């Protein structure tokens, strides 16, 4: 039976400013967006906290715009919004590819990019994309905004740098030069949690590729040593060895460390071989 809601309080702000004020004065509050992660915990009787902040009505958090060559995506944009956005299709097709792999249509219509980031699962499908894209997360509080590089955003398993009075309001993605690549290996073809999920950018000769991978460490990770090895022109077999040392996959209820390790190596080779050189 689902967890009780009787003791929960839901605050609905009238504006972003109102929301930030509430976070400061009436916390602790758990921000609530599409609820596709939060309510799974509620249904399992595992939802922590009694105060919740309803972000859903905040239209400004649904923006999608380009400013000075940087694509800004509001935290409340759903996976469906991402897939349908011409801006995202054109500028970050690997994000469209990732959104397409999340759950199924029902989840895509409700789950948000901000929620995927905040949920902080190492298996989050958009997270390798944001890491490989060199994205920046915009956090806001009543003290004003601050920006955090996505690669600095996670500190440990399911831990972020978001303060108790802060809200993720947008993710900013600079223009990406080169070929974008994304692959999710899940437990089945839809409605799947990833066993390995990888995004990569091949910026062309003379530039190091950017590779990020999920489900093989406590957080999503970039692979700087692997990137450097590729850029140095090492043989793919050697690069795979570097990759294997850079990740720490585990055995869990879905898969094995060995499988994740070998698949990650294969995905790397697939990514690299698809580029023309």
């Amino acid at each position: 039976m689902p967890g009780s809601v009787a003791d929960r309080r839901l605050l609905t702000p009238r504006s972003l400013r109102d929301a930030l004020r509430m976070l400061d004065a009436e916390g602790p509050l758990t921000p609530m967006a599409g609820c596709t992660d939060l309510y799974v915990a509620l249904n399992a009787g595992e939802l922590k906290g009694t105060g919740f902040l309803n972000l859903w009505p905040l239209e400004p958090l649904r923006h999608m715009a380009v400013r000075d060559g940087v694509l800004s995506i509001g935290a409340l944009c759903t996976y469906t919004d991402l897939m349908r956005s011409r801006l995202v299709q054109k500028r970050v097709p690997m994000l469209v590819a990732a959104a397409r792999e999340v759950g199924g249509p029902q989840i895509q219509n409700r789950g948000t990019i901000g929620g995927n980031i905040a949920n902080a699962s190492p298996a989050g499908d958009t997270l390798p994309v944001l890491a490989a894209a060199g994205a920046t997360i915009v956090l806001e509080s009543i003290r004003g905004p601050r920006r955090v590089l996505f690669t600095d955003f996670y500190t440990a398993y399911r831990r972020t740098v978001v303060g108790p009075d802060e809200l993720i309001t947008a993710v900013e993605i600079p223009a990406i030069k080169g070929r974008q690549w994304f692959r999710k290996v899940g437990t089945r073809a839809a409605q799947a949690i990833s066993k390995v999920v990888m995004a990569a950018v091949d910026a062309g000769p003379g530039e190091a590729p950017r590779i990020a991978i999920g489900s093989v460490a406590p957080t999503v990770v970039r692979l700087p040593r692997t990137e450097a090895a590729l850029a140095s022109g090492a043989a793919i077999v050697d690069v795979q060895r570097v990759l294997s040392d850079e990740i720490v996959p585990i055995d869990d209820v879905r898969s094995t460390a060995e499988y994740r390790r070998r698949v990650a190596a294969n995905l790397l080779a697939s990514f690299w071989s698809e580029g023309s050189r």
Partner: protein
Amino acid sequence: MLKAVGRNVPRKEGRDKVSGTSRYIDDLSFPGLLHARTIRSTIPAGAIADISFPFDTSGFTIVGFNDIPGRNIIALIDDDQPCLAERAIRHVAEPILILAHEDRDRLRTADVRIAYRGGTPNYDPSASPLCFKSIAIDKGDLDAGMAAADEIIEGEYRVGAQEQLYIEPNGVIAVPADDGQGVTVYGSMQCPYYVHRALTVLLGFPGDRVRVVQTETGGGFGGKEEYPSMIAGHAALAALKARRPVKLVYDRGEDMLATTKRHPGVIRHRTGVTRDGRLTAMDIDVLLDGGAYATLSAVVLSRGVLHASGPYRCDHVRIRGRVMMTNTPPNGAFRGFGAPQTQFAVEVHMERMAEQLGLDPVKLRDRNALRPGDTTATGQTLGADCSAREVLREAVKRTDFARRRKALAGTNRGIGLSLFFHGSGFTGSGEVKLASKASLALTDAGVRVLVGSTEIGQGTRTMLAQIVADTLGVPYDTVEVNAADTSEVPDSGPTVASRTCMVVGRILQRCAEDMRARLGRLSPRDYVKRHGPLVITKQYEKPPEIVWDEVLYQGDAYGSYGWACDVVEVEVDPATWQVNPVKLTSVHEIGKAIHPRLAVGQIQGGTAQGLGWALLEEVVMRDGRMANNSFTNYIVPTTLDTPDMEIVLLERPYRHGPFGAKGVGEMPIDGPAPAVINALRHAGYDLREIPATPERVMACGSR
């Protein structure tokens, strides 16, 4: 007037389901209803040391084994399983107490504390001290058969457990009689009379004080064959103690954790064969894991061993089967019921033998496939409706198998097949023991079918109405099927074993034949006007030629068999070892398709479940507990995981089936797993275990 049998007549049960007006158990409520929750063991083996209730118990009804007025067992076969644990614990999730309360939040947060004395669990069936059942089948002289062989080929094959995952979880509502000496239980179930019997034993009530009503059931697949007796018992005890209706519906996590699964097992083959592929001797060992209590293990083993040598002829056969106790939640019925497990083994073994002998796998099967006049491992002589070679040839022809096999060689694709069969109805003397009854009533409202058989998605009401309508010579629309309510219908036996059409349908047909004779020239309405209402009840009659020896396990195991052949093409992703079933063709010979669309629906659905078992569905057990008891982590096929299927129906009538019909519900799940593994073998992977997850495919390496 158009005949109904053989046509896709409109389903009797259709409109309500698509309108949202079908009432499943969780849609129902009664005044004064209490909700209930089951307190379960968290250890796999040991004993209860102490129980305490450190919370405000006001308003709670608490039921323990001491509240059981009758016998503390779930009456089924062995009567070894308690309804509520007294002291000894034999598995995680073993039920100990039932709590009931008006307020669901208070119910959910009630913190019952149970202290245990831990014991030493055993999870290895081969090391178990308790054998629920063992069966021996012997034919001919095994040693002589082995001596006549040019080669002896051995193999060991493993099959995993499988969760039925009906989309509607188990649930019941129990309503106590006003005098507290009776109860009505409504619920999601396949066998209302199983529940009825279990309740009379548990509660000590006479049969006429217990009423069981099946509500619209959202899938069963065997998972609601015997388990509902347990949940019904729990709700009834609480309802009687509280003197109020009690609703007990499981959430998904509890349902997966606590209820029955397909028996996992290990099957070993040692086979003597001539160089040119004739089977001379088959030595088969079947070991199944029954879980903590016997439930239906004896019968699962029975069907398993009776199908263990596959649809093949061999003069010298020895089959030994055992089902053992382990400290895991009891395993039970799941579509196929032992036959998918043992036929997986024999069909993969056949493929390996073909490979080892350098023979074409189709020719090897065709050579040894049973033909009319041949005898099975139990010495049953097969009749003209034995169609093993026909389904094989049809499947091979339609898929252009030989050419595809050549074309795919050396690629990351493979094509494989499986040949299989399935006995319809209860084994041997089982139908005689069941003594099923069916009634046909004629009133001024029309013709009414009264059976204990249930509609669980397969179209029972439609199919039975078609049989009655055509036999009686009345329009299909004028035949209604009564709800499965034990106060109104006779015991037609359980809705399992692919028997509802062939066995119950035949009893109804005999009722209709009798009724037709009595009607004479009169229309049903005129008959009733002149003579008043009429009810005809008939009981199962064993065809005289069926002879079965339960002790020696010899003779006619089943009245009839269906025959089938699956061909599947798979593609293996070289980077991830994910196996994608790209195309599937399934040929089924089922005697007669009473409703072709419903029959095809059974084949498509059963095949999809078989593919899931083969590739995706793994029950991950950790310390005797299912660790992946969620829809998120127990993986069943979505649309994107299920291939297009070409389904072909063949008909070779069975003399004693209504209009020649045999069973169809279970056979489809016997074929896909070995066909997939055989296709993977063709693609270069030597697998002998399912599920063939990408991790296992990777581990076995390509040749």
